[in-house]
């Protein structure tokens, strides 16, 4: 009874926050509501017995996406000061009614489709459980991510790199922040950054048999980097060119290399010998964590760190 009430409250909060984020007239308020939406979503993942997703959602979905959105909002404000005036612009009149009616019809159709799904799909849980001891790790989600469906994760790491290449190719310059950080931000970042790096290493290590993994660790690493950027830190110019690019590519390159090696030795992409799987997965995850963290920090910056010096 109590847990049923909790589910209803969480679902209503989710809907309300989503609606508020998308309908509020103030763009800044919309972003803040969206971050709150991500945090409630993390609670829902815990309710659905998915703590791995909850961790990823809180770190990436709410935390990092929120930082990206707020940074973009600040830049948008600088580029076009009247952005809050025209942000309320939306479709009105007959098209609005048409869109609303069609969306309602689609909602009903989707709801019916979900309602009529069989209530006891076997899924792949039993197959994963049966083969878990051959995967090299004991956390089933990590086993699926890095072993059973490793090619998904390989492509995902590539997508992350591709997004960064796309962002860099647009030729924006990262804004030079001259203002010194306040005392609170300065002290806090000095205290938090070492702690965040420690947490990232812990999540990476523990991901093999408990809650954690490369993506959560990478996101926590990225949070440390974003905090340092906000406190005024910039990558030294000597590291901005080749060393940065090597770090960004290390994860995808290691993953790709292992994929090619396993393809040549075993005849199948990313099929590990059971006795080697644990070590290989930890190796892939370590390089992937560093690259994911660096890529997310670079995406937050939005432009190559050395571009502002060239102009």
């Amino acid at each position, binding site marked *: 009874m109590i847990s049923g009430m909790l589910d209803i409250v969480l679902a209503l909060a989710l809907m309300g926050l989503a609606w508020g984020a*998308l309908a509020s007239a103030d763009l800044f308020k919309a972003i803040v509501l969206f971050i709150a939406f991500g945090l409630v979503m993390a609670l829902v993942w815990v309710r659905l017995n998915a703590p791995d*997703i909850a961790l990823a959602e809180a770190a*990436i979905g709410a935390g990092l996406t929120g930082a*990206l959105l707020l940074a973009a909002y600040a830049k948008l404000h600088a580029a076009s000061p009247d952005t809050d005036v*025209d*942000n309320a612009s939306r479709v009105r009149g007959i098209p609005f009614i048409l869109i609303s009616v069609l969306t309602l019809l689609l909602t009903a159709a989707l709801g019916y489709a979900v309602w009529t799904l069989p209530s006891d799909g076997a899924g792949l*849980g039993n197959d994963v459980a049966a083969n878990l001891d051959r995967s090299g790790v004991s956390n089933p989600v990590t086993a699926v991510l890095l072993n059973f469906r490793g090619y998904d994760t390989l492509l995902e790491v590539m997508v992350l790199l591709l997004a*960064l290449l796309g962002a860099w190719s647009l030729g924006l310059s990262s804004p030079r922040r001259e203002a010194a950080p306040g005392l609170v931000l300065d002290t806090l970042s000095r205290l938090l950054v070492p702690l965040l790096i420690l947490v990232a290493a812990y999540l990476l290590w523990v991901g093999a048999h408990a809650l954690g993994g490369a993506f959560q660790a990478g996101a926590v690493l990225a949070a440390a980097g974003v905090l340092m950027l906000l406190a005024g830190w910039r990558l030294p110019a000597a590291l901005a060119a080749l060393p940065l690019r090597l770090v960004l590519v290390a994860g995808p390159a290691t993953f790709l290399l292992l994929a090619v090696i396993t393809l040549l030795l075993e005849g199948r992409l990313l099929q590990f010998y059971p006795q080697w799987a644990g070590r290989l997965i930890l190796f892939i995850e370590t390089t992937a964590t560093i690259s994911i963290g660096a890529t997310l920090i670079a995406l937050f910056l939005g432009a190559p760190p050395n571009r502002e010096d060239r102009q």
Partner: protein
Amino acid sequence: MSAALFYALAGTGLFSIGLHALLVHRHLLRKILAINVMGGGVFLVLAAMATRNDAALPDPVPHAMIITGIVVAVAATALALVLMLKLTTEAGHAVLPDGKDDNA
């Protein structure tokens, strides 16, 4: 109604809220938020379906797919935001044209 079905229906609701906002709003930042809400709805349906079979642990395959999806969503959002900023520096605003009153 089981909790799985309840959250799956909530997921379809989120998807619809996002889709409606995506079509109705003209500001690009609002459209990016809307796509993220739609993605959240899809993830919710997937995760709810993973808990259907009343086992001790839910199906880990959809969970892994959702984690992959969250990372891809943040990558796509970051790229979309940079595209929006590029458009703003070129066009002076981040709002899509009406289609009726500015033919320029």
